[in-house]
């Protein structure tokens, strides 16, 4: 009689959030820094973003269609990858490179490993590193800077390689940082499209925190580690506080810490693993800035940490319920049989 009743395993209710709503939140949060980039770099930011997003969606759709897999563009993750990719590229990047980057990010890094949630490298950052190789880049300088001006050639902001540490800082600027705190905070500095405005990046991060899309652990550990090390060991003859603020705001640190290092697929799920992941990213970033003179320190340190996520989750596994982490019997944990 009741053959139309649904039988399924508990629980029978679900929270409202789903994959799509989370990805939409990511897009909303990324809107803030992109808006600033649009303001500073001009219309080219918009066209680059459109190319990047459309290419990501198209490649994901085509790949899954060709391999007869379920359609996945509805989850919006391809769109997020597109925006993240454009965020780490300079505004002067040629369109064909953006399209190539989108292909690498979506097809090679993401889909070949099984799609959403299965990739072990951050697609946008891996594509950024790949494009760097393609262009034989050691920095932002060539050839991305060749055609660095925006679509209509009106930008007064220039994306230039940002020396973040080491001797070049002293040589170039004689012991002071090249930008004021205020300019760096608001974003009136050269850099990749999405990284220039610390203020708006933090606003986007705050939105993600409020929406509980990310937790504070990774960004705080990442930024905190960099802050601590650069404050303790300033270089280039700059005052330590100036040097610290410069390192926090002038490069891709905030973008990396808030939007890249928190990428679900490529970061630990355990709370302790997340702290360790953030600290690791911070340490590597500082090392690369100090000893490798690479402006992409943030990008490479996150990619490197991506490869040890599973190990960090093993290390960071929560304490078993009812079993003390250290020591044996204490009040409450042990059995007392009278």
């Amino acid at each position, binding site marked *: 009689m009741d053959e139309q*009743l649904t039988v399924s395993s*508990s629980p*029978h209710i679900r*929270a409202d959030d789903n994959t799509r709503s989370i990805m939409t939140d990511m897009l909303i949060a990324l809107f803030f820094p992109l808006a600033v980039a649009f303001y500073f770099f001009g219309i080219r930011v918009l066209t680059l973003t459109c190319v990047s997003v459309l290419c990501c969606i198209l490649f994901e759709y085509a790949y899954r269609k060709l391999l007869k897999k379920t359609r996945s563009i509805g989850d919006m993750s391809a769109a997020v990858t597109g925006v993240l990719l454009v965020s780490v590229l300079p505004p002067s990047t040629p369109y064909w490179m953006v399209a190539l980057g989108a292909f690498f990010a979506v097809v090679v890094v993401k889909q070949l490993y099984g799609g959403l949630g299965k990739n072990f490298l951050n697609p946008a950052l891996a594509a950024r590193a790949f494009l760097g190789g393609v262009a034989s880049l050691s920095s932002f300088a060539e050839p991305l800077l060749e055609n660095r001006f925006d679509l209509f050639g009106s930008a007064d902001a220039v994306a230039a390689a940002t020396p973040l540490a080491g001797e070049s800082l002293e040589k170039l600027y004689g012991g002071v940082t090249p930008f004021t705190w205020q300019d760096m905070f608001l974003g009136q500095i050269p850099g990749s499209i999405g990284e220039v405005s610390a203020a708006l990046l933090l606003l986007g991060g705050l939105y993600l925190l409020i929406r509980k899309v990310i937790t504070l652990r990774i960004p705080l550990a990442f930024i905190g580690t960099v802050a601590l090390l650069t404050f303790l060991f300033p270089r280039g003859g700059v005052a330590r506080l100036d040097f610290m603020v410069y390192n926090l705001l002038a490069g891709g640190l905030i973008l990396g810490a808030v939007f890249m290092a928190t990428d679900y*697929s490529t970061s630990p*799920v355990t709370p302790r693993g997340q702290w360790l992941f953030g600290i690791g990213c911070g340490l590597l970033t500082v090392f690369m800035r100090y000893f490798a003179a690479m402006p992409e320190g943030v990008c490479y340190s996150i990619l490197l940490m991506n490869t040890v996520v599973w190990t960090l989750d093993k290390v960071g596994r929560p304490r*078993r*319920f*009812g079993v003390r982490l250290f020591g044996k019997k204490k009040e409450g944990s042990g059995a007392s049989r009278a």
Partner: protein
Amino acid sequence: MIHRFRGGTHPEDKKDATRHKPVETLPPPQKVVLPMSMHIGAPCEPVVRPEQEVFVGQLVADSAAQVSAPIHSPVSGKVLAIDQFPHPNGGKVKSVVIENDGRDIPHESVRPKGSAEALTPDQLLRIVREAGLVGLGGAAFPTHVKILSARGKCDTLILNAAECEPYITADHRLMLEAPEEVIGGLRALIKLLEPKRTVIAVESNKRDAAETLRRTLPGKTDIELVVLRTRYPQGAEKQLIKSITGREVPPGKLPADVRCAVFNAATAAALHRAVTTGMPLTRRIVTITGSAVANAKNLSVPIGTPIIDVFNATGGFREKPAKVLTGGPMMGVAQYDLTAPLVKSCNALLAFAEDDMPPSGGDICIRCGRCVRACPMNLLPVYMYMNERKNRLTELEALRLSDCIECGSCSFVCPGRLHLVHSFRTGKQKLRDRPTGSEVK
């Protein structure tokens, strides 16, 4: 000091439909079906024959096993059949079917046993067993076995009135309308267990119930009332003990191993009635609600009443139900045959309309880690799921699948809508089915 358990979640409580509705009494139906298994432990064997005349409160089935609980008739009438009948937990179970003669004649064994103060602990324990009491919060563990395992070992007695599952208001109404029964049962439990500390634990969405209980208690009392934050699964035994005492029950151990004993508020009230009226457990309060129900109600229902009869007695369905549950939406069991009877552990009957069904499950984990944060047992559901899907049983065991209490928090918060708990149930079964000798030490 109130402690906090880690993890958990906060589903919308949805209790408003029945929160303010007084408990109504459902008259016994024309026929009751009493499954021989309404508790954890050995099933009972009938002690009546077909055609035999039985009376209200008469023993119908019992077992000699240590862990079991006897079953009594909620009606007077005639035994119609002893046969396999649908059980709300699935499958068919040997059941005694009794036809109600409508006369409600009590059995001679049903007489007041005195007061808890006057009785000795051993007499009380015998009353608990003979009344067929089981944990009425949903677990249905025989109460006398729990008392036996806890006697002499407990310094803390906790009355569980958290009622953390959404929709359910059965215990809430009980505390509001019969606080003296709850307190009376608690007094009997105090006498049995002699704890140093006795705590009534209520969630913060039932402050009125806490207030009613406080007024019922004498001005000077050693019973503490603790209002806990509303967080699922606050009423799960291990989490409740953690909240009240800060102690954690070690894996595979019992509450008594951390010197605690936890009883449900409805169990205490049933114990009180067993002592003062002599009536064994033949009725319980059930919340009937959900989007497909015409009239949401709290009902005192004779145990053994077919589920469909309970729904019909409240006015039936507003629209065709797409899903019917016994118990709450987080841990309840979906029903496919509504002729199955209401059993002792069932605190709610929920019926959901089609458009109120949660979106169907997906299969893509985005590794967001929400399940890890939500797990109140400190497990890693994301990795457990992955290994269960790939049949990696050794890893599954190493991830302590056995610690999972199947509370549903991980599935609830999962944005990919994965069937996590279902996968863990399957995983536990796979581990049980594994050839012996292959366990990893």
